[in-house]
């Protein structure tokens, strides 16, 4: 890649990201598979950056997964979204911080629809009022949680205890960054750096000392495909897409994969295990996989948080090779402990992927 391009094309797609006072909407997949990431996000927001971010008990799923698998009608999801906005408005907030990338796409798509088809907005107001008695304002700013970490990447760098550098060789670690499709493909202007050379994650990686890998299938979907995963018979589609990406990134020997979408992180992690079971092939070094992390896990590691507090034990592909390269000290015996430090037996370690 030429230097001209590496210096960033963020200027072509200037995205406004609110600086404080966020209403947080959680992600179904992250709460299930990466709860530590959401905990870390709030911790970083409040304790490191001193931001005001509200975690509301009353909000629900945005129903995005149901919508994209076609069991939730458009009118319904518009009204569910309207309810989320109403709760935000009631609590006195204008800025939405969205944990999930599918949700982020939904919020952007619906706000855009309401702009182009005001009658849909009217319908949503009427529906919400009838169903719940609530009223809403459209958020002034909608940002994905990765946008916000991106916005404050320098502040995080200042507090960093670790750098994304191989502690033995001193070389920057090679990181693959994977952007969730619904982050920028629908509305490139809503993604930092646009859709082709999205820079929300690569900027974080570079500022924290790492090097970004560009490989041919970088933009390719991880293969979630909603119904293509939810139905067992269709999972071949899902795994094939992830496998395509792994085959493409393999020659570059990445040290880790960082994703900003919950589904992507989960799939890029689990499919490595399935490929190992099915084909006896692994993509990392020494029969191990390539660790897949969320950006909060990455930020948390850089800030010196305990990997097991961040939830890395919930990944199928073990992250220890990455932690070792970073020079992070962790206590193996605490990896699988439960609440209050309770010692528990860990999962079965599959033979095919260590």
């Amino acid at each position, binding site marked *: *890649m*030429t230097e*001209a*391009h590496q210096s960033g*094309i963020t200027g072509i797609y200037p995205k406004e990201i609110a600086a404080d006072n966020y209403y947080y909407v959680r992600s179904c997949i992250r709460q299930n598979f990466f709860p530590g990431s959401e905990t870390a996000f709030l911790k970083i927001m409040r304790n490191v950056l001193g931001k005001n971010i509200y975690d509301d008990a009353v909000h629900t799923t945005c129903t995005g997964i149901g919508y994209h698998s076609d069991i939730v009608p458009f009118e319904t999801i518009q009204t569910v979204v309207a309810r989320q906005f109403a709760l935000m408005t009631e609590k006195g907030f204008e800025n939405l911080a969205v944990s999930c990338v599918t949700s982020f796409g939904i919020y952007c798509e619906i706000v855009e629809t309401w702009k182009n088809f005001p009658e849909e907005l009217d319908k949503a107001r009427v529906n919400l009022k009838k169903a719940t008695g609530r009223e809403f304002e459209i958020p002034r700013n909608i940002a994905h949680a990765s946008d916000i970490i991106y916005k404050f990447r320098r502040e995080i760098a200042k507090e960093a205890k670790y750098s994304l550098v191989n502690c033995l060789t001193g070389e920057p670690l090679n990181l693959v960054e994977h952007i969730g499709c619904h982050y920028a493909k629908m509305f490139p202007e809503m993604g930092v750096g*646009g859709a*082709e*050379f999205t820079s929300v994650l690569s900027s974080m990686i570079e500022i924290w000392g790492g090097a970004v890998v*560009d*490989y*041919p*299938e*970088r*933009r390719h979907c991880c293969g979630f495909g909603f119904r293509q995963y939810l139905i067992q018979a269709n999972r071949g589609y899902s795994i094939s897409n992830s496998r395509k990406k792994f085959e493409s990134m393999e*020659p*570059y020997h990445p040290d880790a994969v960082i994703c900003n979408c919950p589904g992507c992180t989960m799939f890029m992690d689990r499919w490595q295990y399935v490929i190992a079971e099915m084909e006896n092939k692994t993509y990392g070094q020494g029969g191990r996989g390539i660790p897949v992390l969320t950006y909060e896990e990455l930020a948390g590691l850089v800030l010196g948080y305990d990997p097991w507090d961040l939830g890395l034990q919930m990944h199928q592909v073990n992250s220890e090779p990455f932690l070792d390269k970073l020079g992070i000290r962790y206590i193996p015996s605490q990896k699988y402990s439960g609440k209050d430090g309770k010692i528990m037996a860990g999962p079965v370690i599959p033979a095919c992927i260590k």
Partner: protein
Amino acid sequence: MKSVVIIGGGVAGIETASALSDFGHNVVLVEKTDSIGGKVLKWDHLFPDLKSASELENYLDIKCREGNFAIQKNTTIAQASQSNGKWMLRTDNNRVIETDAIVVATGYEVFDASRKEEYGYNIYDNVITSVDLEERLKSGKTITTRAGYLPEKIGIIHCVGSRDEKSGNHYCSKVCCITGVKQSIELHKLLPEAEIYCFYMDLRMYGQYYEELYREAQEMHKIQFIRGRLSEVSENIDKRLLIKAEDTLSGRPLKMSVDLLVLLVGMEPGKGTKSMAGICGLETGKDGFLKTSDMHFGNNKTGKKGIFLAGSCIGPMSINDTISNARSAALEVHNYLQTK
């Protein structure tokens, strides 16, 4: 004797200036750069007959030497105003030129291919434009990849920056298809072992002998034409380019690795064209080019009395069409000046 100022010293400007001075008018040709002739100076061979561009350069050179018109280089027009039925033009070094008529011949700009991010221009080593290729052909240097290897597989991509909502240009740039066919033949002559693929949506072989050149490309040079628009370019670890398209005629997605990729970039209104629109208060069309008063019957006139248009500031045009258009502009101006 009536006076005319021609703004823009390319093919259109020179032809109009020459014709008007032959009619006996007092003509001044104003050019913003140091050289006369415009973009054709960088051309190697012209379509469809593959004549050397130096023939055209000679032609223009003769026009300038034998024509009875003044040429002012390194001059831009900063302001235009009317006074007593005449036009007053102020240049960027504050000289004022008074004239009876103006011909805007400020031409086009090539589409900046780096705007089409997913094609990798200025990002990946081996992606070049048709303009870059023409320069290389003219230089006589061997056509190689950035690393110095002879390309074995070359892709030529049609419609870059044209017919594309995402680039902001809905229109067809007309002359890129024939440029692609011409360059494919030229590449094959230089690299007879290379496989050359043209990725197109439609082949706009509208001009005389264009269709025949396309046929020659297929029959004599074995150029492969694939009907599918390029979607994306990535770089393999060996710096070859991985391109993705659909072969729409067989209905299958297609992936290919090529050593060199040539983007056929379209035409956009030139910087001078855009600024003249503002300075003279001229209307632009939906495509951003200068609008003529009627595309059939008034194709050199504008809404402003005494201001005329010539050449590709009106829209994408080939060289022979530009010359015809420039002569037509001269006739319109001449008729106008007779009535003053």
